[in-house]
Each structure stands twice: as structure tokens, then as C-alpha cells.
């Protein structure tokens, strides 16, 4: 099936329109729209006396409009240039590109969830508060933690929230002047050190061992009264379970520090193992990863943070409180040790409903099955490619994602980037590349539980054939890729040297 290339487009003359069948060349909105056109019919109000104190806009804005059919066409054509989960496998390590159930969209759009205002009287939104309470229950049960801060709007926002709680807990103990260091492994996602630095912590690197995990001895050498926290991802960004995690947690906590766990890889263990059991103090959960809320081309996400008993008192406003039959959001920090507020209003309700729908559909049993399938699929990919592709830590059991490096491509003239671009022509979004930094030319593959075995087999087979072509010396195939996409390789150097970040009148 994968023996010979199926079609050769060498004989493909240019078209007048620049279109290629279903792939249309679509100009910018500003090049096709007009200021006087509108796709919305609004009646001009009857004359009235304006009340703006002379601050009326006098200059035109310059915005173009399109009629409704033109708008549909513009965006439909643009959409066709995008790869998506619905369209194909997305083996992006650390991103958990699982299926986004459409039921979630339907539920989030129920008017009782979508059409309610965060500042309506709380008596009129008890159902929404109950949904938040249920989500809280699921998250706490899955993690065995004490409390959850629901308001962070993304995983990185959750990290800030967790670190703020830690910083506040340290301040409450009077140790702000001494505990100023946060330990972060080199394999960590960039948001970890960025979040720590934002809060004025000094970031110190924790080395991983040659087996890709952090050893308790390495942490022991670094803990002390100056350490505020350690930030670990578990399973880590190399797809490996940090087997010393409980020992590390104990070392840090015994030294008076806190353990922040980056929950980006929760999909490996949700419903199977509980982070609270390994001594985590705070962990953000990416609802847009583990709990299927859609990636939407880059967002919105949601990053609620589960907290241990030591940190629970410092959770930010608002706090959800039940008194008998009545639920209430306490929106101010009066009388609490809440460290403050990290966003206006209450958090990403739209994502809470989607995640809750996902959890209800799966149940505890389904969530465990999802994690097992995710881990099985990643290991299946691993054993199917290990004879071809090299790993920085040697071949060993992984969790929900498998890490390869570019050592096996040495001497071929094919880089990890080139390999990725060739995958695109084969109809696959590439895996995560050049992350984590601890692997040279990293290739991090996370299939998730949403792929059929046939899909996995096709993916594996494709990587094998591409790998063989690379080793056979066919570098040109890779250097010219991708060829079949709406645009071929783009000049990122020019984009950075001469940034053009908007359309302007008079632009060519």
C-alpha cells in the first residue's frame, strides 16, 4: 500500500486565478471589502440628542465590510487551508490533540450556560455554579487534592496562579526574604521558568540523569532553606514517568519548599494515578489538552489549578461556597488568605461546560480507558519505530508520548525540520519538533487515544518509508518539502527582520 508514490504532479501548469482546484487564493479582507458594505442590517436610530460630551470619533476607522455571502466565502476558503484534528492525526507531543466531541459544543451553547452574565444576581445562576461545583468534584477526585482554583484562563496562567499561591504561603511563614529560588529541569516547557521569573524568583536548573528522569540525589543536592519550590512535569516532557517523584516531593517539602507539577501530560494518568498521591502541592490541568476542549487555532484554553491542603487557603478569588441548598461565589478576598485575583469574573465557563460534558460521557471508567489507550498507542508507535529512529535515553517504556532525536539522521543532510516538512506532504501534521531542548533535534510523538489502529499503522508506515528515503540519501525530497500545501516553506527570517504585522493602505 505504501510502496510507490501514488501521483506525481510534475505536469501541473499554472492557473489564471492561482487557485488549484479546491484550494483558493484568498486575498485579504482589506483588499476585497468596502467601507460602505455591511453584512448586518441595522436600522438607523431615530434622531436623538447625543450625550458624549464632545468625544465623538471624527476620523474614519478604515474598516472594510463584506456582505453575508462574501463573508461566508472568505472564511470558508481560509478554513480549507488549515489542518485540523477532524481532518487528520496530530501527533503533537505535549499538546494532546485528542478528538473534540461535538456534544461539548452543543452543551456549551445551551442558553442557560452561554447566555448568562457573570454579574447577574447569583440566585439566577445556581445551575452554572452547580456545574462549576461538579467540575471541582471531578478534578479533586481525579487528583486527590484539596481545593481547586478554577479561574486561570490557560495552562501558563495556571502556573502563575500556583506560583502566586506558593509565594503567598511562603510570605505567610515570614520566609519571603530567604526562599527565592525555584528549581526547574532543563526539559521543562518554557512557561515554567518564565512564570517563575515573572514573580521574581531565581530559576536554577535541575539536571536530569542519562535515563531522562530527575534523580532524587540531584534534587537533594539543590534543596535548602533558599528553595521556594520545584517545578516538575510528570510524566515529563520526554514522555517518561518521573519515577523518583514521590522521593523528590518529600525532599522538597521536608526542606520547607513546595512542589509545583505542570499537568500538561495528565492525559497519561488521568483516572489511573493521582498526583496528590505523589506529594504535589499545586498542579494546573489543561482542559484543552486532557479534557478535550477544542484548540481553536491557538485558544481559548483553561488551566484550573488543584491545590494541596497547605496551599488551599491561598487560592485566589472567587471562591465557590455551598451553604445548604445555596451556592455562592465569594468574589472578594476579605477575611480569607486568598492572594488576590488573577482575572476578571469567574473563569472560562464555556470550557468548564465542555470539560464536564467530556467527563460525564467518559465516567471514571472511560477516563481510565482513555489514559490506557493513550499510553498503549504511544508505546505501540515506539516499538514500531525503535529499530529505525534513535532516542536520547535509549529505548525504554514511555507514557503517552515517545521521544526520538535526530542522531539516526546524521550524515543524511536531512534535519528534523526537513523530516517534519516531508510528513506534511504525506498528509500528517508533524510531531512536536525541537522540544524538549534536552534532545538534539527532538521529535516528540503523542498519538492520543483518539486514533484507530489503522490510523496508527498508516502513520507508522509513513514514517518508516520517509525514514528509509532519508537514509537512502534522498535529501532533495525533504529539502523541497512541503510541495502540496497552499504555501510552501515560508521565509521566517524576513518576517522577523522586517516585521509587517498588519495591512496598511498603500501597501503593495
Amino acid at each position, binding site marked *: 500500500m505504501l510502496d510507490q508514490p501514488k501521483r506525481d504532479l510534475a505536469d501541473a501548469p499554472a492557473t489564471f486565478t492561482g487557485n488549484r482546484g479546491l484550494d483558493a487564493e484568498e486575498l485579504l479582507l482589506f483588499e476585497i471589502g468596502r467601507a460602505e458594505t455591511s453584512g448586518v442590517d441595522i436600522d438607523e436610530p431615530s434622531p436623538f440628542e447625543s450625550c458624549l460630551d464632545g468625544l465623538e470619533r471624527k476620523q474614519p476607522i478604515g474598516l472594510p465590510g463584506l456582505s453575508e455571502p462574501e463573508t461566508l466565502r472568505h472564511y470558508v476558503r481560509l478554513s480549507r487551508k488549515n489542518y485540523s484534528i477532524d481532518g487528520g492525526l496530530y501527533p503533537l507531543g505535549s499538546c494532546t490533540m485528542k478528538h473534540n466531541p461535538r456534544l461539548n459544543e452543543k452543551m456549551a451553547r445551551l442558553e442557560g450556560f452561554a447566555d448568562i452574565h457573570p454579574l447577574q444576581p447569583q440566585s439566577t445562576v445556581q445551575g452554572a455554579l452547580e456545574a462549576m461545583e461538579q467540575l471541582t468534584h471531578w478534578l479533586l477526585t481525579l487528583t486527590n487534592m484539596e481545593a481547586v482554583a478554577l479561574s486561570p484562563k490557560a495552562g501558563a496562567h495556571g502556573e502563575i496562579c500556583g506560583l502566586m499561591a506558593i509565594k503567598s504561603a511562603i510570605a505567610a511563614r515570614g520566609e519571603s526574604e530567604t526562599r527565592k529560588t525555584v528549581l526547574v529541569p532543563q526539559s521543562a516547557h518554557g512557561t515554567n521558568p518564565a512564570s517563575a521569573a515573572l514573580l521574581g524568583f531565581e530559576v536554577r536548573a535541575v539536571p536530569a540523569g542519562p535515563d531522562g528522569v530527575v534523580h532524587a540525589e540531584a534534587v537533594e543536592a539543590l534543596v535548602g532553606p533558599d528553595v521556594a519550590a520545584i517545578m516538575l512535569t510528570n510524566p515529563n516532557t520526554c514522555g517518561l514517568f518521573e519515577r523518583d517523584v514521590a522521593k523528590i516531593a518529600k525532599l522538597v517539602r521536608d526542606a520547607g519548599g513546595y512542589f509545583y507539577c505542570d499537568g500538561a501530560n495528565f492525559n497519561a494518568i488521568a483516572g489511573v494515578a493521582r498526583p496528590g498521591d505523589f506529594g504535589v502541592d499545586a498542579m494546573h490541568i489543561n482542559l484543552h489538552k486532557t479534557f478535550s476542549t477544542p484548540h481553536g487555532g491557538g485558544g481559548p484554553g483553561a488551566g484550573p489549578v488543584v491545590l494541596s491542603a497547605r496551599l488551599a487557603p491561598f487560592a485566589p478569588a472567587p471562591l465557590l461556597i455551598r451553604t445548604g441548598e445555596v451556592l455562592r461565589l465569594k468574589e472578594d478576598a476579605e477575611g480569607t488568605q486568598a492572594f488576590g485575583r488573577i482575572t476578571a469574573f469567574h473563569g472560562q465557563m464555556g470550557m468548564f461546560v465542555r470539560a464536564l460534558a467530556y467527563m460525564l460521557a467518559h465516567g471514571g471508567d472511560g477516563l481510565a480507558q482513555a489514559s490506557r489507550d493513550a499510553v498503549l498507542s504511544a508505546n505501540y508507535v515506539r516499538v514500531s519505530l525503535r529499530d529505525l529512529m534513535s532516542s536520547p535515553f535509549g529505548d525504554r517504556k514511555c507514557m503517552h508520548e515517545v521521544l526520538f532525536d535526530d542522531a539516526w539522521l546524521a550524515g543524511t543532510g536531512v534535519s528534523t525540520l526537513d523530516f517534519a516538512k516531508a510528513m506534511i506532504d504525506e498528509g500528517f501534521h508533524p510531531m512536536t519538533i*525541537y522540544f524538549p531542548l534536552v534532545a538534539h533535534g527532538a521529535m516528540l510523538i503523542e498519538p492520543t487515544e483518539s486514533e484507530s489502529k489503522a490510523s496508527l499503522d498508516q502513520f507508522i508506515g509513513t514514517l518508516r518509508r520517509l525514514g528509509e528515503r532519508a537514509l537512502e540519501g534522498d535529501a532533495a525530497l525533504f529539502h523541497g518539502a512541503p510541495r502540496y500545501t497552499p504555501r510552501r516553506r515560508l521565509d521566517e*527570517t524576513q518576517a*522577523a*527582520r522586517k516585521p509587517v504585522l498588519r495591512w496598511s493602505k498603500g501597501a503593495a
Partner: protein
Amino acid sequence: MSTTHFTTDHEYVRVDGDSGVVGVTDYAQAQLGDIVFIELPPVGKKIRKGEPLATVESVKAASELFSPVSGEVVEVNSALEKTPAQVNEDPLGGGWFVKLRLADAGELTGLLDEAAYETHVQSL
């Protein structure tokens, strides 16, 4: 009569009297790839050997240039603001970063001369 000294981290300083012109070597610019932006220090800044002097950005990475010597910044190559590509094209000439007034000529003995640097690069 100027002499150029190198570090194993691929920085150079071309010394003339107590003045030193600092930049990165050809090997460094090749490693960094297309350079898109350089962040230069303010004139007057006092720097110690080994401290970060400038930041070099390519599309995918940001690297720091550590000063090979101690001194005070007397001039920066502001042309790099418009054309950072100069560092790729002419690293030892028009792609210079910073001119320093050297604080301690004795530091130069710890650096490599051209031949020693070439040998070092060959070994990589």
C-alpha cells in the same frame, strides 16, 4: 597595530591600545543561522569579563554574547539595528557589536590567538 583574541565560545576582541572591538566569529554566525535582531548594551555600561554583553536573536533562538574582557562600553554598532544580517555577512568587520575601553590588559593572556582558535574550531 591591532591584534585579535578569541574565546572558546566564539567571541572575539580586536585590541588596539586600550580599545577593544567585540563581536562573534564566523563559526558563531553560521551556528546561529539568520540573525534577525541584536540587543546592544547602552553606551557607558561597565561590564566584567564573562558577563552578558548583548543578545543575538535568530528566528528560533536567542543567545547571549558574553564579554571576553572587562571594560566600559564606549560605542555600539547601531547599524546592526537596521541590518542585523551584517553579523552573518561580515562578522569580523562590519558585523562588530561593541567597542570597549579595556579595564585590564592582563585578561588578554587568558584568551586564544588566531591560530589557537582555528585549532579549537577544527576540533569541534
